[in-house]
């Protein structure tokens, strides 16, 4: 029996591609959650609403201060003990999305803070209402320079979604582990899974480097 069995490797590709497809879906939806929730969190913290801002600061610290794996375990294995039960995939998506919201919120904050104070003053001088000021003036200008950073978080989420295999989700790593334990051969499924992760993340990181030149001003 050789170390690498090409026929076996080819035979397991379809099942790994299924997991790969689930990984892409989980990543995409989680990323959308982190974009929306992160923006809301950063705005609420920026407005410094007395109690609410404090609560959000604490939540952000909690999420950043504990491992994603622990959060996934709590959501999937502990919450049901209190009667809160969801399927593994939705649970995983929400955990991953909320986890990264804590990070994207910080990125948004940096984007908002680097906006020149004159932009706020001009909006005020024109009597633009707060919501309109945020939507039309602040957010478009705050997001532009942080697009490359958000792109990097997208790649990290894509890779971190592998952690969700530990709460029974058969995504890319999960399907590789399943194949491995069924056939007692781990080399082929894990290698192919690694290649599939790389096939997505490497071109994406090249693309982000290009975006950096376009969106981040030189000065």
């Amino acid at each position: 029996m050789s170390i690498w069995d090409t026929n076996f490797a080819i035979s397991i590709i379809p099942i790994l591609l299924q997991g790969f497809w689930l990984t892409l879906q989980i990543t995409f939806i989680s990323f959308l959650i982190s974009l929306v929730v992160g923006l809301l969190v950063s705005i609420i913290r920026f407005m410094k609403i007395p109690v609410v801002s404090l609560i959000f600061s604490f939540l952000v610290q909690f999420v950043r201060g504990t491992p994603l794996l622990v959060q996934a375990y709590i959501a999937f294995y502990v919450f049901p003990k209190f009667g809160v039960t969801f399927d593994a995939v939705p649970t995983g998506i929400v955990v991953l999305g909320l986890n990264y919201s804590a990070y994207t919120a910080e990125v948004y904050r940096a984007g908002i803070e680097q906006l020149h104070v004159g932009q706020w003053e001009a909006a005020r001088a024109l009597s633009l209402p707060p919501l309109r000021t945020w939507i039309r003036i602040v957010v478009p200008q705050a997001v532009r320079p942080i697009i490359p950073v958000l792109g990097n978080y997208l790649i990290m989420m894509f890779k971190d979604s592998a952690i969700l295999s530990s709460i029974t989700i058969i995504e890319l790593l999960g399907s590789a582990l399943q194949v491995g334990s069924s056939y007692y051969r781990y080399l082929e499924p894990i290698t192919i899974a690694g290649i599939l992760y790389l096939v997505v993340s490497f071109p994406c990181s090249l693309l982000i480097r290009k975006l950096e030149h376009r969106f981040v001003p030189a000065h």
Partner: protein
Amino acid sequence: MSPHTDILKTLNATESPRDIEISFAGVSKAWGDNHVLRGLDFEVRAGEKVSIIGPSGSGKTTILRILMTLETPDVGLVTVGGDVLWDAKPGVKNKETKQTRITRRKVGMVFQQFNLFPHMTVLENVVEAPIHVLGISKEDANARAIDLLELVGLKDHMKHTPPELSGGQQQRVAIARALAMRPRVMLFDEPTSALDPELIGEVLNVIRQLATTTDMTMLLVTHEMRFAQEFSDRVVMFDKGVVVEQGPPEQIFKHPEHERTQRFLKAVTAY
């Protein structure tokens, strides 16, 4: 006759020119120990063009910023067009009220750094507030914005974004943007200080045209003494948070009475 008569007419307020348009009564403002305004009493008549001069840190810009509600006075009453803008009580944290926001709409401001929205076109900059604050239809707002851009000589640039324009052009767009809100009071906060010398004239020409052909009340903070002289009905010399001296431009520039004014004018014109 100016070719822009129609659009200039729309900028005219209807109030009698003898009415008091802006009033500061006992207004103070301090940051820590730095008292930028000390019990200021100051009035401007409707349609009056007033230049405020004085050394940096004298509090002259703070007057404009309080009128634009970018600063809150610590104490004092400020009214615009007879309506309360600020009624600040001592010893409490004064905040803007609904009345502040209503009265603020009578005021427009042109900033030293233009503060245009760089991600929007020139036209979008001008129509944003008329559509979303005044509730004017998009068609009407566009038509009026184009007239105003023509007035400031930038109709051909309405599809450009501010970073594509020179500083002088940006400042003229900023003037059009402020005018689009039909303010009764226009504030100019050192409108040419950030400009290259050869671009100052085009901005001053626009301000001059507004000053001579509309009855908007105008306050100008400037270091351009020659322009202040021709622009103003009245010049106010400011130092250390109080009015040192005020009067018609000939009097202030040719025969200043106060020693502080004489020293200041000598310093800024000695080159």
